[in-house]
């Protein structure tokens, strides 16, 4: 269904309002990713406008692809109402600033295609920009590593990546302190993709868009309040302060996603009840995904896009019989409570001793420590000598193992032990060897446990 059917407002007017709402956010991006690096002498004068250029390239790419498509199928009249530049614009806004241009171009191509295969504007069931985003995540995942988010002279992990590396729930000092205080989160000076960080500007845009009846405010509101409710519940269960739910609302792309992505006129619910439930379900999904991986706004919006049809069906039934939403209310309450308890118990886990790890022998001379330790692998215990000199692993020698020949071979083929020694400062981030995941993981665990014992 096109937005002109779902809303009384004219589509062109809506798109114009969206652009107005996005303008301050884009200007803030120029300030944050252009002007600040310029004052630090990281980029030259033209570098100030690089964020603007980045956004322009994105929007022009999708614009040109759709223009070509409508020229090929000879329906240029439809092109006027297809607003081809929006997917690229949004995609550029949710990517890190240092994304290589070719990645942006590929992402824009996929975004446009995901719109075209469903028949163009008004018929696509998935948010095109997010499809492009997910494709970039799956294909060029290096883009989302820390160094691509660089804002200041030092590159930092995004708050959510940082939070996912903290064991346990994370104290105020661990989660918020490294980035200033919660006000910095609110204004948006924390590292993140181009536009997602400034909650303040997103809220202003939300108020403007709601007053002009451009977006479905119920979705954004119920989305954000559900995330708040669940994280607040978790913080109560684990006895931490109010900073915890606020951290979850202010970090990552939650507010930007809730205001601009989840309310996309084409791919969101049309009925009032459907919109509220879409927001609540989005909140539950985002919380679950955030606690299992790092960020889940994009994925949860795409997943909910698939259920919009069902929600609208329910919503239109509720219009005639308000009891029809009763099973949904029960279901949603159940899901909120269960997810609250499950996620809280997931964060409560304190690091325990690995039962599969055992130190056989430990020799200490002045600055050299030799461990002989075993770790359970695929076929039995792997026994290895680990030599630590001056706090660094110098050599790892495997004495005996019970792994299958192929698996052990592929671990040695990949020179995995050297990789582990090279990456010893961040062992958890060393990739495993495909085809011998268990063996390589247990080797890694062995080193992690040895280092833990050493410290």
């Amino acid at each position, binding site marked *: 269904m096109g937005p002109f059917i779902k809303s009384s407002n004219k589509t062109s007017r809506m798109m114009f309002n969206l652009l107005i709402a996005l303008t301050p956010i884009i200007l803030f991006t120029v300030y944050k990713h252009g002007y600040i690096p310029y004052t630090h002498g990281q980029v030259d004068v033209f570098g100030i406008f690089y964020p603007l250029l980045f956004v322009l390239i994105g929007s022009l790419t999708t614009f040109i692809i759709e223009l070509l498509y409508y020229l090929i199928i000879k329906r240029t009249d439809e092109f006027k109402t297809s607003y081809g530049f929006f997917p690229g614009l949004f995609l550029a806004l949710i990517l890190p600033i240092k994304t290589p241009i070719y990645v942006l171009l590929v992402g824009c191509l996929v975004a446009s295609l995901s719109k075209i295969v469903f028949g163009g504007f008004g018929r696509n069931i998935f948010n095109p920009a997010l499809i492009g985003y997910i*494709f970039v995540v*799956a*294909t060029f*995942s290096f883009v989302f590593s820390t160094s691509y988010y660089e804002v200041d002279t030092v590159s930092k992990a995004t708050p959510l990546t940082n939070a996912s590396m903290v064991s346990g729930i994370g104290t105020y000092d661990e989660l918020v302190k490294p980035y200033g205080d919660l006000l910095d989160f609110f204004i948006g000076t924390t590292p993140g993709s181009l536009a997602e960080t400034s909650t303040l500007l997103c809220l202003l845009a939300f108020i403007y868009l709601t007053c002009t009846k451009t977006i479905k405010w119920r979705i954004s509101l119920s989305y954000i309040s559900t995330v708040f409710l669940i994280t607040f519940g978790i913080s109560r269960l684990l006895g931490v302060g109010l900073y915890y739910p606020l951290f979850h609302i202010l970090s990552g792309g939650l507010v930007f996603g809730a205001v601009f992505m989840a309310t996309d006129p084409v791919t969101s619910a049309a009925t009032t009840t459907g919109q509220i439930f879409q927001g609540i379900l989005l909140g539950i999904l985002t919380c679950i995904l955030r606690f299992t991986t790092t960020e889940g706004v994009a994925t949860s919006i795409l997943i909910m896009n698939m259920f919009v049809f069902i929600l609208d069906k329910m919503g239109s039934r509720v219009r005639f019989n308000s009891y029809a939403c009763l099973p949904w209310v029960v279901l949603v309450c159940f899901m909120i409570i269960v997810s609250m308890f499950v996620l809280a118990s997931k964060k409560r886990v304190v690091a325990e001793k690995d039962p599969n790890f055992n130190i056989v022998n430990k020799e200490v001379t002045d600055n050299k420590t030799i461990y002989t330790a075993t770790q359970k692998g695929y076929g039995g215990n792997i026994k290895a000598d680990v030599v630590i000199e001056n706090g660094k692993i110098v050599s790892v020698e495997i004495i005996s193992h019970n792994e299958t020949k*192929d698996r052990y071979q592929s671990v040695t083929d990949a020179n995995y032990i050297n990789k582990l020694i090279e990456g010893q400062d961040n062992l958890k981030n060393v990739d495993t060897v495909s085809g011998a995941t268990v063996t390589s993981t247990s080797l890694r665990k062995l080193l992690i446990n040895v280092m833990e014992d050493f410290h």
Partner: protein
Amino acid sequence: MKSFLKDNPIFALSLGLCSALAVTTTFEKAYMMGLSVLFVLLFSNIFVSLIRKHVSTSIQIPVFILIIGTFVTILSLLLERFMPSLYDSLGVYLSLITVNCIVLGRALAFASKNSVGKSIADAFKIGIGYTIAMMLIGLVRELFGSNTLTFMNDISALTGYRLVFKNVLPFSLSILATPAGAFITIGILTAIFNFIRSKYESN
């Protein structure tokens, strides 16, 4: 050519998609899976066709499944003996040939109604179509997804030498190596396939 276009199990009939999605990460696994299905299909078609006059329709399916299961077991025992690493990498999808809808579908729709000769021809027609389709999917997914080309690696125990190319292309789209990439690949190939078919039929 005509029967490949019209009766292709994956692209035209959308049958046997499970294995086409799961074991097409490398070219080698894809064509060995295709040949395995061809083997089972051939023998099940022969035997189903031989006993077709003695089986009443009410117990058709259990009897046919039994026949198919027998040949799948024979095949998996053979593979385990002669190509253990291939047997490992095909995993559960080898035993799942038993319930592969191509094999059972041809037994029910064709072999149980036709003579042995015709059934053998049908098995080759469908089986080779399936194998070619699997090879195409495997080729695209391995080449663009993981940027390698494996012609012989797991089966080198039998053939004696390995044939693996690495870093063929200057780039790789790792999404194609994931299960989601399998869907995308099959979708794109089906679209191309349907385009060719429509051209072919209009001529």
